[in-house]
């Protein structure tokens, strides 16, 4: 299967990587003691490692090509399975039923830790769905989404700290304030396009974080706010395990509501307007769509979900400080949307579960986990650039009288 030429090429590539990694992998210097450590064995590891990786990639590419040759005529069904299920209402209901019962019994099967990280993953699903409105549907590249998340989290933390307001009371307030922040951001950036918009939203996110960090009187600065109340359960203060469990079910419920609403938005007059806006702004306006209003609504709705999840986040960790709201967080949420497949709700769910659970399960790799995370992010994009699940084309059934 492997020709001599290919092997030769693979060897050359391995040698190139040996050269590439030579200074960083092989040499280690101690500038104070003035000693040089030559770690030649690392060069060998690199060579062998790259050789194997390349062989693997070639092997799979080869196999895929052969497969494609075999069934050239059959339609692309690599992703059709999930869509087939979603399209057929009976299958869909069965699947949803199975999924729901799995989700409900999850905490009883697994331990608190698993439940805990599942809550985190679910939070990111909702964050992803929120950002999906802005980026996936309306096509507005937002790199500062974490700002709205922070607004929500700090709303709860501060209102709880100063006025003792409870979780359920702040939930809508946090969402509302975040939506308001979304509109505030939206106004100045209405005119900006593409990457200019991206950098301004990035700046906005940083500004919010810096204000939280520096304005001690308001936000208590970098030392953060501790002892935030967990959600009360009808006035009863729950123990830690119970409140994690409680939060888990709150999150599940909230996720279902979110999916329901986002799905309806997507298939509405407003959702169509967002997609049209993403496709062509000028034509969109010429068709009578108010660009400003549509954009602002997208920003506000996206931010609303972030704000609500922020409130849940503060209630979950019981402690927040600005360190949780860095640019990297925005990048992760954006990765969820893109990885899942822009504009696809199912995709976002998969994307969030993968990106959030992956680093947790990669804990076994300990110090290599972020290295692996970065590599996987690149690999997923290279092998599936359109995302895990690309959006289904919506068809309308039309009966003529």
């Amino acid at each position, binding site marked *: 299967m492997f020709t001599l030429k290919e092997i030769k090429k693979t060897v050359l590539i391995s040698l190139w990587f040996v050269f590439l990694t030579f200074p960083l992998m092989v040499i280690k210097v101690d500038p104070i003691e003035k000693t040089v450590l030559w770690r030649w064995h690392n060069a060998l590891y690199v060579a062998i490692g790259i050789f194997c990786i390349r062989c693997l990639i070639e092997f799979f590419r080869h196999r895929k090509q052969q497969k494609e040759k075999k069934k050239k005529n059959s339609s692309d069904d690599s992703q059709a399975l999930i869509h087939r299920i979603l399209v057929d209402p009976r299958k869909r209901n069965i699947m949803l039923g199975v999924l729901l019962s799995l989700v409900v019994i999850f905490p009883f099967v697994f331990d608190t830790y698993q439940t805990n990280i599942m809550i985190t993953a679910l939070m990111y699903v909702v964050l992803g769905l929120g950002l999906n409105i802005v980026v996936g549907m309306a096509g507005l590249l937002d790199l500062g989404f974490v700002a709205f998340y922070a607004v929500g989290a700090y709303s709860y933390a501060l209102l709880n700290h100063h006025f003792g307001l409870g979780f359920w009371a702040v939930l809508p307030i946090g969402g509302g304030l975040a939506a308001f922040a979304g509109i505030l951001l939206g106004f100045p950036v209405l005119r900006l396009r593409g990457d200019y918009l991206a950098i301004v939203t990035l700046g906005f996110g940083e500004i919010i974080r810096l204000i939280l960090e520096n304005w001690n009187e308001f936000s208590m600065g970098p030392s953060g706010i501790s002892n935030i109340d967990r959600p009360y359960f009808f006035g009863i203060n729950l123990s830690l395990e119970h409140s994690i469990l409680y939060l888990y079910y709150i999150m599940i419920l909230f996720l279902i509501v979110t999916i329901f609403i986002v799905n309806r938005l997507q298939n509405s007059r407003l959702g169509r307007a967002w997609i*049209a806006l993403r496709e062509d702004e000028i034509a969109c306006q010429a*068709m009578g769509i108010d660009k400003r209003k549509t954009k602002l609504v997208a920003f506000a709705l996206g931010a609303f979900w972030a704000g609500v999840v922020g409130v849940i986040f503060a209630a979950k960790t019981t402690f927040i400080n600005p360190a949780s709201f860095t640019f990297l967080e925005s990048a992760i949420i954006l990765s969820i949307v893109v990885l899942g497949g822009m504009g696809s709700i199912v995709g976002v769910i998969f994307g969030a579960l993968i990106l959030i659970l992956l680093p947790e399960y990669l804990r076994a790799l300990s110090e290599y986990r972020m290295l692996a995370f970065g590599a996987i992010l690149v690999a997923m994009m290279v092998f599936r650039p359109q995302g895990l699940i690309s959006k289904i084309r919506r068809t309308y059934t039309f009966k003529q009288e």
Partner: protein
Amino acid sequence: MTTPILKVTGLTMDFGGIRALDSVDLDVRQGEIAALIGPNGAGKTTFFNCVTGIYIPTAGEVMLTPAGSNKSKNLKGLKPNQVTQRGLARTFQNIRLFSRMTVLENVMIGRHCRTKAFILGAILRNRATRREERKILEYSYALLEKVGLANQADEFAENLSYGAQRRLEIARALATEPLLLLLDEPAAGMNPQETKELDELIKKISREGQAILLIEHDMKLVMSLSDRIFVMDYGKMIAKGNPAEIRTNPDVIKAYLGE
């Protein structure tokens, strides 16, 4: 005589120091097909852009009057979406469809400014919203049938043939229920067969009482369709009249053939 649907007076547009439109007057009457012709760079598309709100003109008036009414609306300075809302819809010289949306969805977008459902309606999907959605669907589908694209309703717009994309743009513009339809070079790049079909389509729409203003280079098409023709050169209106008059107008001949 009834008030013309569109009455443009003294429309002027400056870009920096260059005067692209110089006090242009034009009017389109109820139910007629008017054409705007002129050599390349005469300012025809600039005229469209000024009328539809993409550019804000330096001076002049753009008045739109619904049929059988005396209430004129001034369109000058309005945003493109407001212009469309008031009843002026256009197509684009270089096709601007929503390429990753289906053919049907493209037309449904055109219904946007004639419908109302918003966030709450979308979420609750109450009876009024459902009825509205159904009407959007029916209206859009009927338009697709009119332009002959009903059997491709679920295709992505980008997968249509060139001529079909042009027709889809017309359908999309019609979906906004315009008082006046502006067509920017609808036949550009079409083969004779497609042009012939377009000719029939425009005539069909016109027969239903739709007022149309078109920019076109294909003289055969212009002459066959138009009730009246306006000729521009170097940003000025140099002639207007019926096809026969224009054909023999010395200024027009000079503009097209040079000195």
